[in-house]
């Protein structure tokens, strides 16, 4: 073994052959976790957290939306506005869980050093972010369906096209969960992550549930920028007797586009947060 004199070294990287007297080359690296298996492992682990910690919050999300619909019943008088209220309240459940709760989760994970666990495992960043986002989007399914069915009964809307929720939940979920994850991972402090998540949810509440015709134009612009809006609109359109499926599809593809972009940003934010 060659010993490097300490004086030679200060502040400089030692040449490889000086640092170790091994004959062999670098050791073989362990396997890397591949994207899909890792994603499904993260998804499964996150989903199991719901059993422990999230069920009360899912109730809160649902009751909140149901309460809002009951309140709005005195304000709107059926027709177009009622559709907007039901669609907005349903997507609000997604916003509450996927945006607000996920932002809080990642904010706390980052602040407490919990990200170290994932950062010292050979797992693709996208698997951690997508797995968590998918799990949080899944948490919203029961609440969203209950809210939508309740709203349809309350405002006497047709239940025929509720199947469109199967597309609305994952796409709006992807967009909002990506946004939530990015906010949580980028916020310098966990309280700020919580605040941003709450603000995002409030925006989804006000801009999604209130019928757009009554909003000032500045607020309407904000409404157009919010990804959940397109999920709300797509869903609201399907209450028509003969929905314009092309427009529904267009709205949903905006959701999908925003979802891809926001999840990409969240993945980048995770990478940045993991190595400090």
């Amino acid at each position: 073994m060659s010993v490097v004199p300490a004086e030679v070294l200060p502040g400089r990287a030692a040449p490889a052959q000086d640092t170790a007297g091994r004959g062999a080359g670098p050791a073989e690296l362990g396997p890397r976790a591949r994207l899909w298996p890792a994603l499904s492992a993260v998804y499964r682990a996150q989903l199991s957290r719901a059993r422990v910690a999230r069920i009360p919050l899912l109730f809160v999300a649902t009751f909140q939306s149901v309460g809002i619909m009951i309140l709005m019943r005195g304000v709107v008088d059926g027709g177009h506005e009622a559709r907007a209220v039901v669609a907005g309240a349903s997507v609000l459940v997604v916003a509450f869980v996927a945006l607000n709760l996920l932002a809080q989760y990642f904010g706390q994970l980052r602040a407490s050093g919990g990200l170290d666990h994932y950062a010292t495992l050979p797992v693709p960043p996208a698997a951690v972010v997508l797995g968590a986002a998918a799990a949080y989007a899944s948490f919203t399914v029961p609440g969203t369906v209950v809210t939508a069915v309740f709203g349809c009964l309350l405002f006497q809307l047709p239940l025929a096209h509720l199947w469109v929720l199967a597309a609305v939940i994952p796409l709006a979920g992807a967009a909002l969960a990506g946004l939530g994850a990015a906010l949580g991972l980028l916020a310098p402090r966990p309280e700020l992550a919580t605040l941003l998540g709450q603000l995002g949810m409030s925006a989804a509440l006000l801009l999604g549930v209130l019928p757009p015709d009554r909003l000032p134009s500045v607020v309407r612009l904000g409404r157009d920028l919010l990804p959940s809006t397109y999920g709300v609109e797509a869903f609201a359109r399907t209450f028509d007797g003969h929905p314009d499926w092309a427009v529904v599809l267009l709205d949903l593809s905006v959701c999908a586009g925003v979802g891809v972009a926001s999840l990409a940003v969240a993945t980048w934010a995770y990478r940045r947060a993991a190595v400090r």
Partner: protein
Amino acid sequence: MSPVVLPAAPEGGRGSRRRGRRAGPPRGVCAVRPTRKWFRARDPVVSSFVSTRIPQTVRPGREGDVVCAVRGLTKTYPAVRGRRGVPGTPEVRATDAVDLDIRRGEIFGLLGPNGAGKSTLVRQMTGLMRPDRGSVEILGHDIVRHPERAARILAYLGQESTALDELTVSLAAETTGRLRGLDVASARAERDAVLDELGLAPLAARPLRRLSGGQRRLACFAAALVGRRPFLVLDEPTTGMDPVARRAVWAAVDRRRAEHGATVLLVTHNVIEAETVLDRVAVLDRGRVIACDTPSGLKEQVAGEVRVELVWRERAPLDVPEVAALREAAVESGRRWTLRLAPEEARAAVATVTGGDAFAALDDFTLATPSLEDVYLALGGDARGLVKA
């Protein structure tokens, strides 16, 4: 009151930690070896222990191949400007030109009090933090240039469990194994084996959050072991554990060392643990390695010293001139005085306090050979924050 006769030191006998606890008059047993070289704290010689090369050069027969080499590692936290109501903090050099060589199959320790820079150093060695300068090479891989490779050659047990807290013990271990690249079947097989090995099987279905601190730590340790790695980095793994759990941890570590030649880097602020489990230890103080050797090798440095601890009943009898003279050398902590003395001085001190007027005021006394804590103090470290348990 009868004077206590101190037994003569047995020839070549090793001093042991024994204490005279008092029912009536105090009785002390001391066995020290007077032949060891006398070493005085803060002697200029101390500075020569700074280099990590010392152990290699003094014990040429014991070199294994180096699996982890750290050279000139430096990390400085920038100064934080004060805001209203919050005072600013100056620039802190958390890691200061650290050099380390960790050899295959050894349990290498980083010892130091809280805030000495142990975790910061480890975070740089695991690719979690970029150093400002210096190099880290683990099993031939440059971790500073390729931090992502660290995850494929080492397992890291950090201090935080928040990522796993809401999972069950079983799922935490299995998920961690899968994220280490194992397929479902082998992740489950390894999970079961590790949980059995650590005695966690009865807790497998409980979420970590509902476990006690020590059990949770053990569950995190289990997760770290699923998916075999040749290099284990354990940051205070036994915090909060009961003796049974600690034994399980060290048995598991030893098994991986014996069967797979695993190397362990252990962060600890517990001097007793450091003395019993470590092969070699680097002592950290304010981001610098102030000594690096085997625990017994380090203790040789202060072998000439004897630690005398005196506990007074109410307060020290300072009216006794000999006691007043001892006070100058003592570190006082309430009723407890700690003195580090040459064997002859210790003998005289004990004779003083166990005879005459001082004896009436004495509650308890202990004579002990030096521990790593004494080494730490002798090297100029600030030992407050080290734990003896």
